[in-house]
């Protein structure tokens, strides 16, 4: 039993921290959030140079990057492109452009009445290499160069630089990861070799990575709350000396640690194809994204009025936490899966190992 990242993975984490602290301070994140979404070729190229867009990265390397990009609230389509889309492009001609940083790819799966990755909608159909129909609430669609579109019998890639009119940006609560609709009307598309069934793997990995990213968000909320309550004075004392405040911060710490344990477990289980991977990702996604929401809400409260202002960065994290909580269903959806395994017998009555 060894619950530690390898030396190389820790080096990747340290490099990611340095890069994000240097290149993506709060002010730049906020500036990006407050501008119109577009593909930022220069910023994306920097991720390519770091190797973050390589298709060969393992799940545990992705886990490290998901956590660190969550801590920094990186407003680039890394989650969409690297976690959701790239695994579907095995052997495809688009990979070279992604790894060089010239292309970024989103995934459009949701349709009205079929919101989730494991549902099939049928609202988009193909005829003679042209797609017609509508996809909704696709993440980062306005910040990428290409999109993979799911139909009932295939995966298709649409070049958005060639056909920009199909994207309809939506006003989104989390302005660092915006949603958009995709209106296809005889739009030229190219069929991918990867079958639709690969979406099951993508979903599993995405749930684990959403959990890891949520841990990063929660950790940042904890750090902000700790820093503030160590220095802010009221009634002649640092507010962190009041147990009404310090116990709130302790509660955030507890939730962050529990969430981190589950998120790393889920990432490991997916990387190994472990027998418990489905229940692990359901548990981690539900717990970690709720922990991130909890951490942000309690950090806002610990800050008092300043934490409630638009100017303070906390609400940006809070909104990302809520985005992650909503992604592929809130906690209760995933707990329904856990309940099926625990109560209906697909796991050994709740044991790990």
């Amino acid at each position, binding site marked *: 039993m060894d619950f530690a990242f390898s030396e190389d993975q820790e080096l990747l984490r340290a490099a990611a921290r340095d890069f994000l602290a240097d290149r993506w301070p709060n002010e730049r994140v906020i500036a990006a959030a407050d501008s119109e979404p577009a593909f930022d070729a220069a910023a994306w190229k920097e991720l390519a140079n770091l190797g973050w867009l390589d298709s060969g990265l393992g799940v545990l390397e992705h886990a490290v990057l998901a956590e660190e990009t969550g801590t920094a609230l990186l407003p680039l389509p890394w989650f969409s492109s690297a976690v959701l889309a790239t695994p579907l492009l095995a052997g495809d001609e688009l990979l070279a452009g992604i790894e060089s940083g010239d292309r970024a790819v989103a995934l459009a799966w949701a349709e009205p009445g079929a919101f989730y990755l494991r549902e099939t909608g049928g609202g988009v159909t193909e005829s003679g290499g042209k797609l017609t129909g509508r996809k909704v609430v696709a993440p980062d669609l306005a910040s990428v160069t290409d999109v993979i579109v799911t139909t009932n019998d295939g995966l298709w890639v649409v070049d958005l630089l060639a056909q920009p009119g199909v994207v309809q940006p939506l006003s989104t609560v989390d302005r660092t990861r915006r949603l958009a609709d995709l209106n296809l009307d005889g739009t030229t598309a190219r069929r991918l070799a990867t079958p639709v069934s690969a979406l099951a793997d993508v979903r599993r990995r995405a749930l684990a990575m959403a959990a890891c990213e949520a841990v990063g968000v929660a950790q940042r909320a904890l750090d902000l709350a700790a820093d503030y309550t160590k220095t802010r004075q009221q009634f002649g004392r640092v507010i962190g000396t009041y147990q009404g405040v310090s116990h709130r911060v302790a509660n955030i710490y507890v939730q962050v640690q*529990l969430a981190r344990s589950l998120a790393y477990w889920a990432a490991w289980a997916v990387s190994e194809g*472990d027998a418990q991977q489905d229940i692990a990702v359901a548990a981690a996604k539900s717990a970690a994204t709720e922990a991130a929401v909890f951490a942000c809400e309690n950090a806002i409260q610990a800050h008092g009025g300043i934490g409630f202002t638009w100017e303070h960065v906390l609400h940006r994290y809070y909104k990302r936490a809520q985005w992650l909580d909503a992604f592929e269903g809130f906690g209760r959806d995933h707990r329904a899966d856990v309940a099926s395994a625990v109560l209906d017998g697909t796991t050994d009555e709740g044991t790990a190992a």
Partner: protein
Amino acid sequence: MDFRDTPEEASFRAELRTWLRDNLPDDWTTRAPTVGRFDLAESRAWSRRLYDAGYVGLTWPKEYGGGGAPHEFQGIYLEETARIGAPEHIGGIGLGMAGPTIIAWGSDDQKRRYLAKLLSGEEVWCQGFSEPGSGSDLAGAKTRAVLDGDEWVVNGQKVWSSWAHIADWCILVVRTDPDAEKHRGLSYLLVDMHSPGVEVRPLKQITGDPEFNEIFFTDVRVPRESMLGQPGEGWNVAMTTLLHERGTLGFALTAALERQLRNLVRLAKQPAPDGRVPAEDPVVRDRIAQQWIDLQALRFTNYRSLTTLAKTGVPGPEGSVAKLHWSETNQRLTKLATSLQGLASQLDDDGAVWDGYWQYQQLRSRGNTIEAGTSEILRNIIAERVVGLPRSR
């Protein structure tokens, strides 16, 4: 990162499973769980069998009767015994607190004298730390010990001492220097509970059981050499005890919670007294799933802390959340279990589901956030020592 057993761990796990299957009663896994009440003779006999098979004190030094095994083996032991619901060793305080402190501070004579009998269950230990006037504030202890010739003469009162009514020995924090600063005036004695002047009065808990006790010491004479550390070092010795209580606790808490979760799942799948099957109710399913997730969070947080321990010799800071999380989770779990029984949840003893198992467990769980460090103290520790906030007092 790898959560699988090494070949050595896997073979230890397999041997243990076989041993448990061969040594527990045939109908063990199908019996309803028993109420938490203590059957002394059964527990002693079981403890002895565990000891003879080499499963007690797995990580303790071999020369004192231990197994000299790595921490992971103790983790596997607790996982497997929880899985099958095996009874616990009689000497919980001795194994978790007195023993590790004697290993850390005791002389060779003391280690030889106490450890093997503690492991075999022949001698049971209790803890004399809390007093009526000093619960969480251990350094405020007032029980006095005065040197008279070659003996310490002890006078005072301790409280909340689990198992004192069956204990042979007590780890006792006493004040030996009333003039010293409060942390420096303490010493740590090993006291024979059969000495003249020791009186144990059971304290009935809200469960109706006398698991806790008051201990009164009236002119109790303790040999001078029955001390761990030097006079005045009692605080440091006691910190070793509490560190062990919290440090090695993670696996035991995970095991205890897993046991409860298995019982909860079993309860939810059988028709309740009102005729409904709780496991078919989506709200109940959601809550049970959350309990399962809370259990895994405890398990893997414990693994993380243990990995840090193996790599650095010190448990990771995340281990500090284990007891706090466990106690509050266990309270939610037991209350959920009673809530599945409708008004029949208000029955007790023979008339209740499983002879009142859950009624007992639910009431007992209220002590979980008070004993072994209240949740308030644990939150102070996390805020101050882990997160680094300024001291609150």
